């Protein structure tokens, strides 16, 4: 196998965007290391053909594909078994995994089984003098660590949405279908049920995100944010306290533990600006803060600010946006 292997998966049905982010990272690493790159593609059924095309369209020239009925949402143990089978045939030197729901369990376990070096949650990868470097956020986003990977094999997990999807680079791949026997009865975990929370606009893909914090005071405040977001075709997110309190679904949480967003515009309402929150929102091109405390740390990160009570400011915004849009 080529020296760099991207773990691409369609466990949730389609090839996730984060798999393509890894392809971009692998292309850049390959330019510096010259090891060649391949993808291990995991999933089940008809989606795999489509995923194969998308990978080729983005420059992948070798694909090891496993189609198995257990390779569905959240099935880390099945994914681990499939990867072990692939890597037994051809051992890669560098494995890239997306730190998504499955990947954050998978990467350290794979590293342990391969006796590999491990870097988790990288937000940037590079090559210096033939050596891989990785950067990641530490101390709640207060600092950035640079790690040097001095050993092979190495397993590197990359934070979803930290990297861009690369430009298409159509290629034709050699495709090897790898037959894997996975004994369902032997797997230590099994996903019994997948519960999806409806959202009109996905938080991570929205160009405009409105985040509410503890300052919203309860679930009712979020109704106002939803009204404003609907007018702007945006999505609503939250800091941790509203998610912890059950005012909003946990999947709305933005930040170190929550989601990473990279919208054109992030409007933070009733959020103080803790580094752990901003860690997930610093990729926003423009940050607007609405907070009644003019000394709140959020104003040292925002580009535009309104010092005021959201209960006055947000309704005023809703009214003006309606005027603007003629609704």
């Amino acid at each position, binding site marked *: 196998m080529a020296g760099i292997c991207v773990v691409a998966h369609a466990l949730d049905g389609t090839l996730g965007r984060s798999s393509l982010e890894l392809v971009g990272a692998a292309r850049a690493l390959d330019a510096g290391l010259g090891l060649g790159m391949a993808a291990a593609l995991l999933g089940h059924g008809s989606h795999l053909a489509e995923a194969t095309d998308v990978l080729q369209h983005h420059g992948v020239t070798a694909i090891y594909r496993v189609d198995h009925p257990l390779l569905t949402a959240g099935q880390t143990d099945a994914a681990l078994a499939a990867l072990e089978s692939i890597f037994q045939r051809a051992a890669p030197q560098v494995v890239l995994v997306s730190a998504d729901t499955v990947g954050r369990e998978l990467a350290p376990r794979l590293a*342990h089984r391969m006796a590999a070096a491990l870097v988790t949650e990288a937000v940037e990868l590079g090559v210096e003098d033939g050596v891989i470097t990785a950067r990641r956020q530490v101390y709640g986003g207060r600092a950035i660590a640079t790690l040097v990977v001095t*050993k092979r094999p190495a397993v590197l997990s990359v934070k979803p949405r930290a990297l861009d999807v690369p430009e298409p680079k159509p290629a034709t791949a050699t495709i090897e279908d790898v037959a894997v026997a996975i004994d369902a009865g032997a797997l230590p*975990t099994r996903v019994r049920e997948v519960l999806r929370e409806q959202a009109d606009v996905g938080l991570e893909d929205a160009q405009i995100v409105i985040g509410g914090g503890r300052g919203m005071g309860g679930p009712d405040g979020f109704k106002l944010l939803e009204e404003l977001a609907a007018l702007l075709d945006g999505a609503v997110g939250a800091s941790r306290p509203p998610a912890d309190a*059950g005012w909003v679904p946990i*999947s709305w949480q933005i930040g170190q533990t929550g989601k990473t967003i990279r919208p054109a515009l992030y409007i933070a309402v009733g959020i103080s600006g803790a580094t752990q929150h901003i860690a997930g929102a610093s990729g926003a091109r423009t940050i*607007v803060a609405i907070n009644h405390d003019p000394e709140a740390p959020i104003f040292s990160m925002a580009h*535009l600010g309104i010092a005021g009570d959201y209960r006055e400011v947000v309704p005023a*915004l809703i*009214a003006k946006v309606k005027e*603007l849009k003629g609704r």
Partner: protein
Amino acid sequence: MDIIVCLKQVVDPELPVRDFAIDPSTKRQVRDGRPLVISTYDENALEVALQLKDAGGARVTALTLGPQSALGDAVRLALAMGADEAVVVDDPRGPDLLGIEKVGILAAAVRRVGRFDLVLCGCESADWVERAVPPLLAEAIGAACVTFATRVEAADGGLLVRRMADDGFHQVEARLPAVVAIASDEGNRPRLPKVKDIVAAKRKPVQTWPVGDLGVPSVGEGALGVEVREVVVPQRTARCEFVEGEPAEQASALLRRLQDLKLL
């Protein structure tokens, strides 16, 4: 059920940014004079253990790896919350070790505790945020693994675990023994110990094991394969432009600015 909860002690992660500094010699956060606390989600993990104990009976052991001299408060809090006993693995380098370096030590400590069905961890340490120890530990002790779990129930001789997913939740069945890493939610907010619990905690057993006694060979630098080259504090450069006036004026002015910036 026998439950081990892995607790890491960290500098209070919510201290103001001005109290944060990196020691260039260790490439880690300066700890001197800063308040030390149990890492945020480890308290949620302990709460989950105590709820399982309340529901069906369990023996809960708190396990922490770090410099013994500094661990007093964390261990006492865990016992006051309701852990039955505590084990301190005394290693002065504890706070600086990477996941791959410490997993062998934690695994040896878990084996020496002996009885365990479930090992609970936090989903990420509040300082280094590696998210590595729970899956590594699961491999090292041959246990099932689920991370970013918010709820855990005993079911059919195993566990039913609610795991956060990108767009909702997964209900995951796990066999025992298992390592489960806990994220916060409304159902696992850490309990506050009462005065009588704090008093009772003083009589609970605490064992201290010097790391050398566990007989774990230290991971050499080459075998580790990762070096921390530098840890830097980025400078923030944004300058906030305040929009003034009455709410209606602020709203109009903000929208105008956003239109200028082609954001609307």
